[in-house]
């Protein structure tokens, strides 16, 4: 109950904040909200069960494609159905990413550490070819219906702000169950499996199903995050979910602090805002130098910031927040979750 109230409050605050942003910032906020949903799923997966997935971008893409295909079909069948297309699209996104997550999760339960990372990595690399072979529109991708601002609000807010609202609401609906899951009994089971699989099994917790379930629970928010991006951009393309983006999701989870939902929010905002900030900074340097650095400096600086952040705060932004809240280290800090499940 308390969690739900808090979630509602944060959602309201975020929606209020969109009034303070110009249209492009609102577009970035919508993007960050989509990334946040995916990173929240990923951080719970890595932090609580130690399953390192490098392929969450593919789960986002699955959600995006699921959303685009379903919403377009509903929109074509009933053009004036209003929110029906959106809701059906979200159901499609959850179904597509959940199904892929289940398949991956069943494999994940049998794989450990680097082997799972390798499997998920291969999935990311296979995505462009899959988009060409499957009916997913090749490199041009699928387009999703444009959701205009409702009549009643059209004088008050711009379309980017409306999309930011939708993004915030969808992300809230995707992440809140994850918070409940993490705090409740399933979270306890996941931690038990992370701690020691044999001991967990002796205590009656079967590691296989727990790990598979964790993968599905992590895949659905990622898929909804993909749907958020499709709402904001009306397009799903394989190019948008490449290897770099997939690794960026892991970076966001690490910067934020593995296992922390609040940290995931900070990480998501950082990975959306940083490349743009760096690009803006590059534009400020002399033109010929800028041209030479174009496309390279952004990546370089981004890497440097990530390394610095990780060195300064190995437990991520979440650890920093925890320290700010309790200046004296009275309470024992929670053990840093580890990705190492091999014993």
């Amino acid at each position, binding site marked *: 109950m308390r969690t739900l109230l808090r979630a509602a409050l944060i959602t309201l605050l975020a929606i209020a904040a969109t009034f303070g942003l110009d*249209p492009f910032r609102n577009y970035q906020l919508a993007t960050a909200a989509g990334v946040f949903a995916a990173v929240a799923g990923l951080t719970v997966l890595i932090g609580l069960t130690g399953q390192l997935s490098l392929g969450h971008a593919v789960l986002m893409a699955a959600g995006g494609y699921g959303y685009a295909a379903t919403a377009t079909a509903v929109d074509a069948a009933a053009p004036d159905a209003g929110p029906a297309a959106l809701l059906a699209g979200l159901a499609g996104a959850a179904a597509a990413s959940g199904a892929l997550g289940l398949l991956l999760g069943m494999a994940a339960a049998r794989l450990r550490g680097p082997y799972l990372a390798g499997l998920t990595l291969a999935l990311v690399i296979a995505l462009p070819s899959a988009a060409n072979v499957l009916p997913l529109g090749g490199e041009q991708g699928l387009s999703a219906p444009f959701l205009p601002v409702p009549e009643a609000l059209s004088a008050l807010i711009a379309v980017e702000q409306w999309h930011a609202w939708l993004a915030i609401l969808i992300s809230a609906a995707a992440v809140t169950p994850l918070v409940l899951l993490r705090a409740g009994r399933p979270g306890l089971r996941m931690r038990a499996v992370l701690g020691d699989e044999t001991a967990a099994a002796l205590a009656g917790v079967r590691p296989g199903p727990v790990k598979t379930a964790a993968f599905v629970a992590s895949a659905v928010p990622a898929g909804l995050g993909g749907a958020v*991006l499709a709402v904001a951009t009306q397009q799903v393309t394989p190019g948008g979910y490449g290897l770099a983006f997939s690794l960026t999701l892991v970076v966001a989870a690490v910067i934020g602090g593995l296992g922390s939902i609040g940290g995931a929010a900070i990480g998501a905002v950082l990975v959306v805002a940083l490349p743009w900030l760096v690009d803006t900074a590059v534009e400020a340097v002399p033109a010929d130098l800028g041209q030479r650095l174009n496309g390279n400096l952004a990546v370089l600086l981004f890497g440097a910031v990530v390394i610095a952040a990780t060195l300064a705060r190995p437990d991520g932004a979440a650890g920093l927040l925890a320290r700010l809240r309790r200046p004296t280290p009275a309470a024992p800090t929670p053990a840093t979750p580890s990705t190492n499940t091999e014993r």
Partner: protein
Amino acid sequence: MHTPARTATAAALAAATAVALAACSTPADDEAPGVTDDTVTIGTHQPLTGPAAAGYSAISAATSAYFAYLNDNGGVHGRDIEYIVKDDGYDPSATQSAVRELVTEDEVLAIVNGLGTPTHSAVLDYLDEQEVPDLFVSSGSLTWNQPGVYPNTFAFNADYVTEGAALAQYAVEQRPDATICVLGQDDDYGEGILEGVETVVDGNAIAEIQTYSTANEDVTAQIGAMMAAGCEVNVLGTINGFTAMAVGTAAALDWAPQWYVSSSGGDYPTLVGYLGEDVAPALLQGMVSVNYLPFSPDDPWVALFRQINDDYNDGAPFTGNTVFGMSVGYLFAEALAAAGEDPTRASLVAAVESGELLGNGIVPLSYGPDDHAAYRSVGITVVDDGVQDYTGTVYSVDAGQVTTVEAEPVPLANDGIPQPPEE
């Protein structure tokens, strides 16, 4: 932990801020964003990095160089043109962000020459919904010519169907008994070229049709199949890198068919860059392509553009992409000059639709209220002894009919600085 009091304060503060800032994000209704007393700001999305960067990244540099030349000569109606180039790496999702930033942050008057079919398709609806003029799209897809659906979008390239039909017509006239085959990119581009070829040659008479994906950097299988089918004339709907790869792969197989290449992949200087100075003249001897912009070595437009390239573009390699980029810049300047003393988004679109723009092509522009295509006729070029030049044959393609027409090159006037129309 949040204490209730702190949370309440935060909520109240946020609500107050929200009310105070409510005006920040409301829809703007400015008729002429990007226009100040002495500047006009426009923007574009281009592949400066990524798979399409080689060759195409030179286009926006050339356009910027032309605008620098124009600004040094007084600009248009006393205003300098500021051309903001955003890199999208030929990735549609990056185009989404880039174009939104141009429209909402930089508040451009228009998007000019956005490059690529998959990339520009991703922002077409957005630009339409925002009513931003979307001028001279750098792609030959037929998508851009839908005045009823996208009233503000105008194409620049001759469309791929026109190019395919012209190439096939020339092949049939030159070598009536040759076996014709097609290699195309697996999207609108390759499909358009194939459709054009099929308007001239019966579909069953095409001995072999092969496609490739830009994600897969190898065409050995495709070229092998075409060689096995006994192709003599290969019509290519390929981007420059893949044209070079096709020609190079065939050479490695000791096979020398005739190459008929679309304008987007048949730029001789760019292909030399891929294949190397030593072998390119031999491999590309006799290559047939199409073009609609001035390209003869002795053309006055080419001489002017070479001069601008030396003065304002650090003497970058002068290729078909340079001519293309500068021609786009010239056409935009002409449209802006015709849009009146105080241009608005509406007057800019009206100027293009008026049908009075001349451009600098070797054939007339076809813009009008019901036609948002730029060039409906193309001239045939052939490479001979390392020089690519027009043969003099020009085809016009209309409703599936290919007819031979006369070239009508637009003469160079006033050093390439457009003048406002006479009152």
